[in-house]
């Protein structure tokens, strides 16, 4: 055996030795990988269950809280005692439309008082669904005595400590067309009070006059032609949560929003995700409160070449939407009092969603992002806004 041949043999023996050593190590690694996979699967399951639970509880809480807050969940009415100079009766309006000038003026006059009442309304509204109630703010003279009627309205005097009493003092008779009001706001003695004090109020079930509406691989991830890796780890899934601000319905409801999303990476440029967006508004303008949920699927595409650090992507997909909100409906002036109808409404719609998002990696697993989105629904509602997102890849 010559030296060269000996060297070759030694090299083969060396290789065989390495193979044996590595074989043992890799077998141990296999066992470790299986254990890790099992652990990951268990954690993912726990995480998934927790996420679904939190989502369900949040949605339930938002919807139930909205119901509790809504003064007219069971139909309600607010009478503002105020001396008016002329007899007026506001035409019932859609919450989406601007009120008449006088209505706006009247509302602005009583805006402050209304705020105080809202909490009272929630607690004192007759939740039997019976019908309207009257509230005396205590600012003016006591309520006029009203003749008993056929329905069961409630009189509440917030100026005193009296409890709500089922009252037969209010008649739920027809309309106010015949109301006679003097210039000083008083009612003539011969006028039929029972005909002047009540207004039909839509029920909470949406019937009546409610505005009905159909309403983040190791080096296999080395980008082609580039040495910069897009993913340092083979992480296919990511969870994103975000908070933001949005405009809902016709854009007149302003909401704080919470967005949760689970995404899956197909390629470095193509992702899919399932998202849920919750929003809550505590009132602005005619809106007393509102909450909505949207859910849907996004397909995300990186328009620019993604890098490990930064990724700009556009997203689109179908979406579903449900909103519950309470808003001021029509207002009427009765015996110098402004009477507001509050309407509770819930509607659902199907639509689509588009978004643009920029993600910035903080570490291999953690990233932050900013997203602008808009959902367009078939009932012409929209949900548009911006979110600041925080994400974790796994």
């Amino acid at each position, binding site marked *: 055996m010559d030296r060269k*041949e000996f060297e*070759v*043999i030694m090299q083969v023996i060396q*290789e065989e030795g390495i193979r044996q050593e590595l074989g043992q190590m890799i*077998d141990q*690694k296999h066992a470790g*990988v299986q254990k890790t996979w099992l652990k990951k699967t268990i954690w993912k399951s726990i995480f998934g269950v927790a996420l679904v639970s939190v989502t369900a509880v949040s949605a339930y809480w938002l919807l139930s809280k909205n119901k509790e807050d809504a003064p007219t969940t069971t139909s309600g009415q607010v009478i503002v005692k105020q001396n008016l100079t002329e007899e007026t009766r506001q035409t019932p309006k859609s919450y989406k439309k601007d009120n008449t000038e006088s209505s706006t003026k009247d509302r602005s006059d009583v805006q402050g008082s209304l705020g105080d009442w809202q909490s009272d309304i929630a607690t004192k509204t007759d939740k039997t669904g019976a019908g309207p109630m009257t509230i005396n703010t205590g600012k003016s003279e006591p309520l006029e005595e009203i003749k008993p009627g056929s329905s069961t309205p409630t009189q509440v005097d917030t100026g005193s400590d009296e409890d709500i009493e089922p009252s037969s003092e209010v008649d739920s008779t027809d309309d106010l067309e015949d109301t006679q009001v003097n210039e000083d706001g008083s009612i003539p003695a011969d006028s039929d009070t029972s005909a002047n004090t009540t207004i039909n109020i839509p029920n909470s079930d949406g019937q009546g006059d409610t505005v009905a509406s159909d309403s983040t691989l190791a080096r*296999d991830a*080395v980008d*082609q032609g580039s040495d910069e890796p897009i993913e340092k780890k083979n992480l296919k899934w990511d969870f994103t949560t975000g908070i933001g601000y949005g405009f809902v319905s016709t854009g007149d409801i302003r909401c704080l929003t919470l967005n949760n999303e689970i995404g899956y990476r197909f390629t470095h440029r193509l992702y899919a995700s399932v998202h849920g967006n919750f929003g809550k508004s505590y009132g602005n303008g005619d809106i007393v409160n509102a909450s909505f949920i949207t859910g849907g699927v996004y397909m995300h595409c990186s328009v620019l070449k993604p890098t490990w650090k930064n990724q700009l992507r556009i997203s689109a997909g179908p979406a579903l939407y449900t909103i519950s909100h309470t808003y001021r409906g029509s207002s009427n002036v009765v015996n110098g009092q402004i009477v507001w109808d509050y309407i509770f409404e819930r509607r659902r719609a199907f639509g689509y969603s588009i978004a643009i998002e920029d993600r910035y990696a903080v570490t291999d697993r953690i990233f932050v992002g900013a997203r602008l989105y808009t959902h367009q629904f078939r009932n012409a509602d929209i949900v548009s806004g911006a979110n600041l997102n925080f994400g974790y890849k796994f």
Partner: protein
Amino acid sequence: MTDTQLIELLTSEDNGLRNKGFSYLVERDYEPVLSYVKRNSGNPEDAKDIFQEGLIALIRNIHNQSFRKTSSLKSYLYSICKNLWLQELRKMNRNTAEIETSTSEHDLERNLASEFDEKLQVVRDKFNTLGEECQKILVLFYYKKKSMKYLQELYQLGSTQAAKNKKSRCLKKLSSLVE
């Protein structure tokens, strides 16, 4: 651990240090290879073989100084493994149309082909035809640097000389097979 430190460990004559290097590489780089092989019609056993061969090729290239330090050891090893697996698939006549094609970043295929010296391949084939016992004795003595006394105890031989004779017979057998 930097690539330079890792290379020092892998080329060390000390088995302990070398194993430390192997262990580090297995821990760090095996999973991507496993993932790639599994994605391309392979199984964990295939991945194990490919990783072993890839690491051996890496060490050989380090010794030959054909490893360019312009790329990281991790991506270099991964690329070797990818190419080895592609070669393996071609051998098996599998459909490679759908296989993730490799980039030509290191021109490894060419390098590997040139480095797989014919003679080395012949010796390797012959080594595999040796009996299991002979293979083990040669590896223990020449690679793991075990003493004759250790071999004597392991094979329950009468003396260290008997162990030496057994090892010599094995080496001669391999040599004759190669010739």
